[in-house]
Each structure stands twice: as structure tokens, then as C-alpha cells.
């Protein structure tokens, strides 16, 4: 294997490891009693803590997006099209991807660091020797929680984003709230909404998976906790972008 550069080998080893980790997730997910209580706790932990960041980002995206579009469309006298453009852009693409990336940063590093430090301080080993399955208790619950919370956060941020968009419209283009939202709701269809929600479930899965994988396989020594958290963010962000690409391809075929 000498002739291959080390990072290429690492890449394939990581991919293989991630594949096995995924397999293990599905096996453990369906095996035995589900850890409902712990999953709810994790939803709160990873979801609720991302709320402030997600709220601010969501709101500002809509606000600035509308601000940017208004002068351009004003030239064509097409300002009334902005609610439609905004809702499509935000719901289909910008909301899921930006919030997905934010969650990749916040949740990916959080999960990676938490599991990493549990690994380093032998807490995972301690669970294992007391005949409790740490994979089910720690990993399955976190991945599931990310799959539940990311879509909710995205929908929530989309809403705030549209409110932000309305605010900038009402100030700069004197549009009423009624008109704005009736335009929004008459534009958005099930075909805009469903693929967006489905893909954010996958984003959540990817973020939880990568964060747990990096943390769970953290090597010995405290410095590796930082490495685990950091590489979790990088890998999770990349995964969100890749999943988005795939999701868009698939949804254009189906719809």
C-alpha cells in the first residue's frame, strides 16, 4: 500500500468505517427495546441548544435575501414576484442547506466532542463492561435525535426567514403582510415542501452519523477529542452538501 498517499488510504478506511457504522446503526436501531427517554433528552440537548443560532440565521437570511432582490426586480417592475421567489428559494434550497450546515457545525462538533471525551475517559468502556450496550444508548439515540430535530429546525427557520423577508418587503416595498403571505402560500406546493423535508431528515442522519462515528472512534489522549470534533464538522458539512446534490437530482427526476 506504500504507493498510495496516506490521506487517500485514510479516506477509504474512513468510508469503510462509516459504512460499517451505518450498518451497525440499523441493526441496533431495530434490536431490543428502544431508548425513548434518552432520545427525547438528546433531542432537547442537541436541538434546543441550536435554537438561538438557527433563529437568528433563519431570520437574517430572509431579510437580506429580500433586500438584495428588491432593487434588481424593481427595475423590471416585478417587485410583486418577490414573495414567490423568496418562498421557493428558501423552502427548497437555502433554508435546508444553510441550516443543515449550521447544524453540521453545532451538532457535529457537539456530538463528536461529547462522545470523544467519553471514549477517552473510558466512560464508553465502563458502559460496555457493565453489560450495557453503549452503541444503542449513546449512538443510536443521538443519530435518531438529529434526524428528528434537523427537519424541525429547518421548518422553523424557513418560517422565520419568510417573516424576515416580509419585514424587508414591508419597509422597502410597502407590501402588506396579507398580500405577502397569500402569495407565499399560493406558490408553495406539496412538491416544494416534501423533498425539502425528506432531505433534511437525511441531513440529520448524516450529521448524527458522522459526529458519532468520529467521537466513538476517537483515539487515546485528550488532544484527540479536539481532532474528533473538528473532523466531525468538516465531514458533516461535506456530507450535507453532497446529500443535497443527490437529493436535488432525485427530486427533479421524481417531480
Amino acid at each position, binding site marked *: 500500500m506504500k504507493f498510495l498517499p496516506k490521506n487517500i488510504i485514510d479516506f477509504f478506511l474512513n468510508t469503510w468505517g462509516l459504512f460499517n457504522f451505518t450498518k451497525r446503526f440499523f441493526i441496533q436501531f431495530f434490536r431490543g427495546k428502544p431508548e425513548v427517554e434518552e432520545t427525547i433528552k438528546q433531542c432537547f440537548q442537541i436541538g434546543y441548544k441550536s435554537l438561538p443560532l438557527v433563529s437568528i440565521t433563519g431570520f437574517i437570511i430572509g431579510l437580506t435575501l429580500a433586500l438584495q432582490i428588491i432593487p434588481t426586480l424593481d427595475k423590471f417592475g416585478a417587485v410583486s414576484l418577490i414573495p414567490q421567489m423568496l418562498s421557493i428559494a428558501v423552502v427548497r434550497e437555502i433554508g435546508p442547506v444553510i441550516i443543515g450546515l449550521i447544524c453540521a457545525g453545532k451538532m457535529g462538533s457537539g456530538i463528536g466532542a461529547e462522545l470523544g*471525551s*467519553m471514549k477517552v*475517559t*473510558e*466512560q464508553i*468502556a*465502563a*458502559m*460496555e*463492561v*457493565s*453489560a*450495557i*450496550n453503549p452503541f444503542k444508548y449513546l449512538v443510536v439515540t443521538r443519530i435518531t435525535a438529529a434526524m428528528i430535530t434537523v427537519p424541525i429546525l429547518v421548518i422553523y427557520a424557513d418560517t422565520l426567514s419568510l417573516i424576515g423577508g416580509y419585514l424587508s418587503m414591508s419597509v422597502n416595498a410597502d407590501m402588506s403582510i396579507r398580500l405577502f403571505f397569500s402569495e407565499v402560500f399560493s406558490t408553495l406546493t406539496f412538491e416544494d415542501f416534501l423533498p425539502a423535508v425528506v432531505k433534511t431528515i437525511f441531513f440529520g442522519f448524516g450529521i448524527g452519523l458522522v459526529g458519532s462515528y468520529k467521537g466513538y472512534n476517537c483515539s487515546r489522549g485528550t488532544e484527540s477529542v479536539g481532532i474528533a470534533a473538528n473532523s466531525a464538522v468538516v465531514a458533516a458539512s461535506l456530507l450535507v452538501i453532497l446529500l443535497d446534490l443527490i437529493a436535488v437530482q432525485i427530486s427533479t427526476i421524481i417531480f
Partner: protein
Amino acid sequence: MENNLAINIEHVKKSFGGNVVLRDINLKVYEGESLVTLGKSGTGKSVILQCIVGLLYPDSGSIYVYGKNIPKLSEDELQEVRKKIGFLFQSGALYDSMTVRQNLEFPLRRLTDLNDAEINNKVKDALESVGLYRAIDKMPSELSGGMRKRIGLARTLITDPKIMLYDEPTTGLDPATSREISELILKMKDKHKVSSINVTHDMECAKLTADRIVVLKDGVYICEGTFEELQKSDDPFVKSFFEGLNF
């Protein structure tokens, strides 16, 4: 094979990369016996304990716990064996996100069907036996290193294991507390007939608790015997452990 063996290790080898840690480990622990392992830091004493509970796998050799060969077991079989084993980690390994009470309740709620009152009693007894009942509602981050280790011990003992593996139970504790812990280990042996392997540098603890002592050096056990026998040993390495002691 003798059937009163709790643990039987045969020809175990283990290396990490190029670092050969265990060369040829052979060890028998009889039921109810308390065995102490001596050896320099970094010689693989913790690695042996981790191999016994299946946290690490040896490169070759067999490890029988009550006749079951640990490296060959399936995950479910391994879990069954682990229920009989208690493991005190060198670092205590308390769950950071839980209070002391939750730490102790955790294995009980998951592995037994005791009711709340019974669990409460057990938690109380276990904490009192390590002298830390007052810490019940604290978080692990609020505890000192020695307290963490004692809570770790309480959490391990609470499930009534048949085999105990102590990784340096008294390191970092003051002499008085060390003695209490040694006495607790002795009590576990006398009252509950627990078989144990105790890794320690604390010769007082060794003297008090050991039925038999083995000395690990360069990946093999170089000698074994009772405390008194080893004390008379001519081997300079073995002697070095007893130096400065006057019992």
C-alpha cells in the same frame, strides 16, 4: 480443566503496532481468591484486565472466565459473562452527564428489575460503604480524583459481581482512605466470596488483600507467591517493591 477456576488465562500475547506489551501471559485465579498484580507502570497490567472483559482482544491465546473463552464469544454471550464481572477503572470512569446517584442507579435500572425503594437502598448502602453518602447529588465534575475513584468503586460493587477487577483502587488516596478501601476489598472477598484481580502499587493494600501475588515484567509473570514469600525473594526487581517497607 479444574472447575473451581474463575479466570484462566493461557498463552496470551498482545502488541500494539510494534509495541509488544504481553509476551506470554498464563494465569489462574481460583474462585474466592484474591490475586494482586505488581509491575512497573506501562508494563500492561491494565491491558490484561481489559482483555479479560473483552475490551481488548489478545493477538493469540485464550482467556476463560468461568469456562467461557472470552475472545471467541458472540456479543450477546459476552454481555452475559460481563454481568458477573465488576471492573474498577483506573480513572474511575464516572458518567460525566449524570449525578452520582444516577451513576449508581444506571446499571441497576437497566440490568435488574428492582423497584425504586430497593434501588434507593442499594445506592445508599454502596455509597456508605465507600464513605461518600454526602456526595449523592453531586456531579462528577465537582468531585476530587480520589472521590471519583471511590464512587467508581461503589458503582461497580452495586451489581454484586462474582469477579472483581480492580485497576489501582487506592492510587491517589490518603493512607486512611486507602486502608478503608483495602478493607472493603477484603470484605467483598470474605462476605461475598468474590474472586478478584487487583492491580496496585500500594504494598499495604497488597499485604492486606492478597492471597497470592504475581509480578509482571517484560510481558511475562516472572514470579508468584504469597506476600511473605515474595518479601523474602532474592530477585532485585521483586525486592524493589518491598524496599522501604517495614512490616
